[in-house]
């Protein structure tokens, strides 16, 4: 084994131009795949303030379907209050509104602001780090208190460096008092993201209480993720009592989803299940399609490199090396090459993400490479190396030793 590694390094050092081309292809391919992984990780992996989201299920998109019409939008307060809140044996449930974009005016300047309305338990499911102050409670929500939690970023824009606690600002004609300050949140975190958080009870109209559809998202914090199947089944069973408008619709499609399933439901609308498998399939297909060209490139390069080494292989064969041994040697050589490419790709990924963060491609999002992304990247690298090494190795092992020794095999 060790001699294989040594040999691999020797061979790679011999033809520098080829090694460079191969490494360039491999590392850039991995950069693209790792950047994609880092972005997906940023969206879906549990992380503060959504660090408990490995135990959280959400209800977001609801579709009503009939023979002629279908309507698809976010859940409504009435649906969440009546069909999600009473679920048995869960740690907590919370309701919040989807983010709406608005503006706060300070003097002559306009501050673009995203607002989210939440209930009190929202703060118990998400674990925000409070720089100052505190969240608002369920009691304050019920009383319709005009209080707000804001981000440090907005606090600076509104009140400069002074502590904002107890100060108030005007939003859409109403005045709110700041009770807490949290760090800025990434736009990629659907449940956490906002600039200002306000109690649902502070809404101007209470119409929302009667709407089954529109504007709200529900969160369920389970005791553990092993409860998910039970909760999903219970929610589905409860929905039989939903007052569907039978004149137009025959079916309501909604479910308790993990964040990934929720996105899948959004993208693959008009299905009864969440369509998570479709999304996974599509992502895998895109990745494979993208890898086709780099793999082909590597295979042709490897092939021509092997043919160059025909005399060496002929000698080994003539001295009795078995086919599996030869294939193994070459595949290992290729994996060593791809691992080098993987490391180079990893470094380039870090650089690329840093640049992306600098331009803040997605507001508030800090894309980073963590152990998980690195592990995925290396996994992809090894897969890539084995994949592109097998066919050339097989061709090599079939070389006729007599022809190979003369270096003339085609």
């Amino acid at each position, binding site marked *: 084994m060790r001699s294989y590694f040594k040999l691999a390094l020797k061979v790679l050092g011999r033809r520098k131009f080829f090694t460079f081309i191969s490494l360039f292809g491999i590392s*850039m391919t991995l950069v693209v795949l790792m950047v994609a992984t880092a972005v997906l990780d940023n969206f879906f992996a549990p992380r503060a303030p959504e660090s408990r989201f490995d135990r959280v299920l959400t209800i977001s998109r609801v579709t009503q379907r009939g023979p002629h019409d279908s*309507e698809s939008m976010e859940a409504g307060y009435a649906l969440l209050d009546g069909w999600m809140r009473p679920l048995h044996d869960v740690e907590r449930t919370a309701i919040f509104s989807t983010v709406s974009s608005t503006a706060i005016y300070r003097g002559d300047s306009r501050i673009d602001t995203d607002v989210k309305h939440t209930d009190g338990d929202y703060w118990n499911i998400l674990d925000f780090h409070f720089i100052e102050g505190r969240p608002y409670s369920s009691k304050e929500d019920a009383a319709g208190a005009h209080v707000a939690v804001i981000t440090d970023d907005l606090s600076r824009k509104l009140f400069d460096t002074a502590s904002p606690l107890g100060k108030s600002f005007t939003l859409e*004609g109403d005045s709110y008092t700041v009770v807490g300050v949290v760090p800025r949140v990434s736009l990629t975190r659907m449940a956490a993201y906002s600039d200002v958080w306000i109690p649902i009870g502070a809404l101007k109209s209470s119409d929302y209480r009667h709407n089954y559809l529109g504007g709200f998202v529900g969160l369920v914090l389970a005791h553990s993720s092993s409860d998910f199947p039970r909760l999903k089944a219970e929610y589905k069973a409860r929905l039989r009592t939903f007052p569907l408008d039978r004149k137009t619709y025959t079916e309501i499609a909604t479910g308790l989803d993990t964040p990934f399933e929720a996105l899948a439901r959004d993208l693959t609308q008009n299905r009864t299940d969440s369509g998570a498998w479709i999304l996974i399939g599509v992502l895998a297909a895109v990745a494979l399609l993208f890898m086709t060209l780099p793999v082909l490139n590597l295979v042709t*390069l490897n092939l021509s490199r092997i043919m160059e080494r025909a005399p060496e292989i002929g000698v080994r064969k003539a001295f009795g090396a078995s086919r599996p041994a030869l294939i193994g040697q070459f595949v290992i050589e290729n994996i060593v090459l791809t691992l080098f490419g993987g490391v180079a790709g990893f470094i380039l990924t870090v650089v690329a993400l840093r640049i992306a963060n600098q331009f803040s491609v997605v507001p508030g999002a800090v894309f980073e490479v963590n152990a998980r992304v690195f592990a995925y990247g290396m996994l992809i690298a090894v897969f890539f190396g084995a994949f592109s090494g097998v066919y050339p190795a097989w061709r090599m092992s079939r070389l006729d030793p007599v022809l190979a020794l003369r270096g003339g095999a085609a």
Partner: protein
Amino acid sequence: MIRHLLKLVWHRKRANALVMIEIFFSFLVVFAVVTMAVSMIRRWNAPLGYEWRNVWVVKVENSMAKNVSGSHTTPDSPTAIDPKLLHDAQLIDRLTRELRGIPQIAAVGSNSMPAYGNAEWTSVLGEKNRSTEVTADFASDDFARVMNLKVLQGRWFRPEDEAADYLALVVDSDAAKGLFGSIDKAVGQKLPGEGFRADPNSPKEVRVVGVIAPYRKSGELSGPETRMVFFRSSLNKPQTPEAKTIVLRVQPGTPASFEAELSNRLHAMAPDVTFRVQRMEQMRRLNLRVRFTPLAAMAVVALFLISMVTLGLTGVLWQTVTRRMREIGLRRALGASGAGVRHQVMGEVALLATLAVIVGAVIVLQLPLLGFMRLVTPGEFSAGFASALAVIYGITLLCGAYPSWLASRIEPAEALRYE
């Protein structure tokens, strides 16, 4: 000559097959990227059909709930107009009239789904045998003046339409062609009112009163087909989706501070309503960013793929030349010139590229049959195809250039002894 080259290529078919597949995939990538680029440039330069500068958009939300379709809130009698709709329509009408009095505001109108926004309503219009999918919106009588719409035939909505027993409709020239075959025939056409929506308030009939220039609701990067239609939003017989967005044109040079003032005045006019003021310029910037970012990412990835293929191909051809030293040396020894050898190597490369491109072209030419033409025009398609051909031949010949030069410099005496 070509038969001879074919023989040479066939002789090394396995190695060549891989190179061919690689060129084939590169052709597809280049075609996709170039077509996209050509298409985007053309889209960017095409007229929008409206004028976004100095337009401000005020979203009016009477309650937190988004429009929940009539069925949940409509009282028992199906023909009665939903009181909530009526109330909202009157509110918008009152606000519009009050805003008209402000000197900084040049024109005020309302619609349901403003340009550059995310909301979109698609509907199927027309008789059963000739129905067409269109993008629809409700708009007020003054909307055309706010957005500077260009009326090509007939007229925009008038207050007199309120009394008519039909619902007035304005179509853009694209929709007119789709629905009636030509722009000239559109004005005065009638369409069945029932059936395009299951709304009990729908009037019996819809009548086209005017044709406007193509209205590209999704902005500069939206597709070649607009098929936009506007229904007249009525004060007395409002329908969903409600025309609940006020659009206004401010006087040129209005300072940004007026936005805060406008916001305050709106809140004073209706304290229990939520208003969101936005400049269309901002909505446009966001829209372009959202559409442009994935395109840019794809272009970077494609560029990387192509440069990788270029390098890889150079390497493979180089290798091939080294391996065929003796063959080439023999040719030289038998009197072939350096240029002759170079032509042979280049000819082989060009042949490989041609074979790959033929397969690629067969596949690409299927795309129009698969409805791809909804995304690009035939002109863009052919431009993309031609440029992809040029790029692929350019790249392969460039890759072949150095190896073939190497081949032409092979010394026969040395090559024949080469092991």
